[in-house]
């Protein structure tokens, strides 16, 4: 079942403002039975002040459609027409503490019904249909087939890479690669038939190069020998809390340095290793800083692209390996929050 927020559940099980509003003077209707959701939004607007004094809804749809409709009425009651026009579907989703990506279309339906009702009140033209369409292809970014098709057609996209650049689809976990490839190949085929692109340009299913595997940068030791660093001169921003001699626990945990180096010398070596590896991380848009060293534990903070990166574990593994080799004793590297 869907992972609905408590607020979505609350607004579904106890909907506010459900039912017909008999004295409505602005009504917006969107959706249809065939697409599986429909919403009738009824507003009572004060013609003098343009304030929405009351709003009610009737919805045909799933739990999140009903919750979104109810949330919408709560959001707009008391607002002026001009204020209500600024409301976006994201506002509805935020009000409900978020919606599953597959269900974002429910919030879009709310926004559309509002636009239709406002248009009915002011006599404007109704906005073009922005209702989402087609199967949800990329779950990470919530991109559906309709949006991808529009991007491919408008921009004459013929590679998977370009589709990802334009729509973000497939840019994260890439598990939608196969349906994405199929969609691109199908649409390109149609575009060739329509004369929009040349046959040799069209994407052929299965012809995409293998996804480039990002080199696990943490393991890569630069080919060129690192510039010799003046020894015992840790760079300024790095602060090392020395293992306190008075902390017997930490000392007990720490195996005796096999290298016979003092704790301070070890700390200097460690900071040097991390300094040497930093350019590699920076190339990838991240950074790593030494925070502390306690016995066999080296604490670092990951920033930028490194933090939250799925490769963080292997990055840390790379650092640990290098330090272990240098110090000659097992070291664990742990990420910590920046103080």
């Amino acid at each position: 079942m869907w992972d609905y927020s408590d607020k979505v559940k609350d607004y579904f099980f106890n909907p506010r403002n459900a039912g017909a509003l008999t004295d409505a003077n602005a009504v917006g209707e969107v959706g249809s039975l065939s697409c599986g959701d429909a919403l009738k939004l009824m507003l009572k607007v004060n013609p003098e002040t343009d304030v929405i004094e009351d709003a009610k809804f009737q919805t045909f749809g799933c739990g999140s459609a009903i919750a979104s409709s109810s949330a919408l009425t709560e959001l707009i009651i008391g607002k002026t027409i001009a204020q209500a026009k600024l409301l976006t579907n994201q506002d509805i989703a935020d009000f409900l503490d978020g919606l599953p990506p597959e269900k974002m279309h429910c919030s879009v339906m709310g926004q559309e019904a509002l636009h239709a009702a406002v248009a009915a009140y002011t006599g404007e033209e109704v906005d073009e249909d922005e209702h989402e369409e087609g199967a949800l292809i990329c779950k990470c970014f919530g991109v559906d087939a309709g949006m991808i098709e529009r991007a491919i057609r408008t921009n004459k996209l013929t590679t998977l890479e370009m589709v990802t650049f334009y729509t973000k689809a497939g840019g994260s976990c890439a598990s939608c690669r196969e349906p994405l490839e199929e969609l691109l190949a199908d649409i390109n085929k149609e575009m060739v038939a329509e004369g929009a692109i040349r046959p040799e340009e069209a994407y052929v299913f299965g012809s995409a190069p293998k996804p480039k595997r990002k080199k696990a940068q943490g393991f890569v030791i630069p080919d060129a020998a690192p510039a010799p660093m003046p020894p015992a001169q840790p760079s300024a921003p790095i602060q090392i809390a020395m293992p306190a001699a008075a902390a017997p626990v930490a000392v007990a945990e720490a195996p005796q340095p096999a290298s016979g180096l003092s704790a301070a010398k070890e700390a200097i070596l460690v900071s040097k290793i991390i300094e040497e590896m930093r350019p590699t991380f920076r190339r990838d848009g991240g950074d790593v800083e030494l925070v502390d060293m306690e016995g066999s534990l080296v604490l670092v903070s990951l920033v930028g692209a490194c933090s939250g990166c799925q490769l963080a574990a292997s990055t840390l593994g790379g650092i640990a390996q290098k330090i272990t080799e240098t110090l000659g004793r097992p070291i664990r590297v742990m990420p910590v929050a920046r103080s």
Partner: protein
Amino acid sequence: MKDTVLPPVYLDNNATTRVFPEVVEAMLPYFTEQFGNASSIHAFGSEVGGALRQARKSLQKLIGAEFDHEIIFTSGGSESNNTAIRSALQVQPGRDEVITSAVEHPAILTLCDWLEKHEGVTVHRIPVDKLGRLDIDAYRAALSEKTAVVSFMWANNETGTVFPVDGLAELAHEVGALFHTDAVQAVGKLPIDLMSTEIDMLSLSSHKFHGPKGLGALYLRKGTRFRPLLRGGHQERGRRAGTENAPAIIGLGKAAEMTLATMAEDSARMAGLRDRLEKGLVQRIGHCFVTGDPHDRLPNTATVAFEYIEGEAILLKLNQAGIAASSGSACTSGSLEPSHVLRAMDIPFTAAHGAIRFSLSRETTEEEIDRVLDAMPGIISGLREMSPFWSGDGAQPDGFNPAYA
């Protein structure tokens, strides 16, 4: 509030079933004591081989296979289906057409879409009528010397409608094609005697009849040419590589034994409860109807379509009342299309979106059915009051005209 104190009612047995406690008990020793590989010589696996043989024989009885080696254990119904269709295409060079129905499970339809699109296979999808019955004339017309395999489900997972597979198999053999049936919903619910039919291949799944998940089987009639899907070790006589899932197979055997022992009485009782449920719902709630073929369908499946409301909303309310069911609604699956089965049966959109499937098991009681009958009218009327397509006493055909359709 008082509903929450009552034990939950599970009426989603076509999705999966509760594993019988006896089945769990039978499986347990094979996790921690007799955990050895059945292929090993030593004592840790010595009893496993015998237990596997026993399980195979129990399943053989349940499906009426002539020989126990006609059973190939797999990871489930989907693997069995994929194996059967791909094998049938590979062993018959020159035949590159598949015939199936429009209402199959995605395990068949998605595979067929792929084969059609990427592997040069022609696929005929035979339509059904409003009761979900196969269009036999269209089937006859599609059969030819090019047909490699025909695959029709034994019983439909959504409506319970049963296809006359034995007759359909004979028709397939007239043109020399192989016949496969996806019997995932039928095994354990209907009496099956494969040796008296012409069916070449049959897929089944353990967790649909109170066995463990992650296990299924492919029945392969003796003498049927075959190409494995998974190659590797010699397991299943070289037809399905991979170390046997011994505890699960033994659990499946126990479940098969228990199911067969009481199938006749269970079926009759379930059918009675199903009828009580259907009649009660139709009597108490207007603007709804039962789908599927009333004359030939599973004893445990009732799919009722409620007009002007959406299935997921009904399910959420049912869940609140402690009742588990499922729907053919679009919203529960994440796609915007309602059930392909109900659409193939030409059930109007107004009702297809609001179709709810109650699937019983032999553990279902009369009291549970009555709880559903008590809960449903309030749920349906509450949601209809919120629906723009509903006007109080019925449909509102012209009152609601959205900006786009």
